[in-house]
């Protein structure tokens, strides 16, 4: 069992204030992830961690969309791969690069963050179930994914100016998943690493979000499996 530790800053936000709690939680996740995820409660509802994920993810998305719009206005729109420059998808992709697209991304960014964290949690929890590492319920996995959204705040840095920086952010996020799942489910790092890497290695990006939305959803129904 998790020993009842001191309340985390995010859970204490009514007392210390939302902004302070957000900054302190982000600092803890990014600088001391092991201690943070070890003391993180694994029950209590999905609303609170989801709120953190939406705020962090939305800020990161808005910043990325803003930089992208500036980039496009300077160098022009990116050439779409062969065959994607026509039809409805081509129209949407081109429109997404415009200023109107930027506004839409900012407005609907919160929705996409919600979708991302649910689908991501479902995929990871499915892998944990298959590997026998889901010692806690779906909510434990969900909380890890939500608080790992702290890395999206690094999008505030104009990453396109720094080579491979975007890749480093993704790697940092995956590392947080590994640490978080190991601590939240009280399993070894090998198992949590396998749960994180398996979908990346065995499944492609285009289908994985879709197929495993269903599979991950069903995994969260089971919750935990001895």
């Amino acid at each position, binding site marked *: 069992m998790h020993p009842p530790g001191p309340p985390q800053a995010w859970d204490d936000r009514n007392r210390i204030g939302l902004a302070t709690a957000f900054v302190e939680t982000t600092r803890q996740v990014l600088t001391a992830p092991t201690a943070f995820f070890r003391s993180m409660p694994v029950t209590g509802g999905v609303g609170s961690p989801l709120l953190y994920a939406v705020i962090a993810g939305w800020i990161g998305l808005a910043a990325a969309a803003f930089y992208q719009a500036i980039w496009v206005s300077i160098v022009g729109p990116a050439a779409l791969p062969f065959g994607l420059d026509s039809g409805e*998808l081509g129209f949407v992709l081109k429109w997404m690069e415009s200023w109107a697209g930027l506004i839409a991304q900012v407005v609907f960014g919160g929705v996409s963050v919600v979708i991302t964290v649910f689908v991501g949690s479902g995929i990871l929890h499915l892998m944990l179930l*298959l590997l026998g590492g889901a010692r806690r319920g779906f909510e434990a996995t969900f909380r890890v994914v939500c608080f790992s959204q702290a890395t999206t705040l690094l999008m505030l840095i104009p990453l396109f100016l720094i080579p491979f920086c975007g890749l480093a952010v993704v790697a940092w996020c995956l590392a947080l998943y590994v640490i978080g799942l190991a601590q939240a489910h009280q399993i070894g790092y090998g198992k949590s690493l396998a749960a994180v890497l398996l979908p990346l290695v*065995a499944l492609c990006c285009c289908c994985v979000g879709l*197929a495993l939305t*269903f599979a991950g*959803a*069903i995994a969260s*129904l089971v919750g935990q499996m001895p």
Partner: protein
Amino acid sequence: MSSAPAAKPRTAPPLRLVSHAGPPLGLIFASIGGLVAIAVGVLHLDRLPIALCYVKVLTGLPCPSCGSTRALGRLFALDVAGAFAMNPLATFGAFVLAAWAVADLALLPWRRALGVEVGPPLGSALRAAAVVVLLANWAYLVAAGR
């Protein structure tokens, strides 16, 4: 002197459907799946002229989830047989998810949601069965050239 027969210890069933106080995850995931289905149907994401699957690009073989976007496109067009042909497991998953969402919707007025409890002996068997089903589905995708 007659003695009462000793009561048999009650053993929990290996698999149990329960209602719990958690969030209606089935409804949430089904809503996400519905949104994706609309995007696939409207933007014709199942008819892209290029392969986005890096496994297929690198090896020429489909990955275990290949065909699921096309399956969803078929489901959007109400072509169930076509969906099963594209990716049987993803289609089956979509139907299970739909049933779960209906159950969550029915439990929603009581602020409850559907869950499944799995007993220890069944856990390992289910895990092994899931791996076998995944591999069988993958073998079908390879054979069918998805």
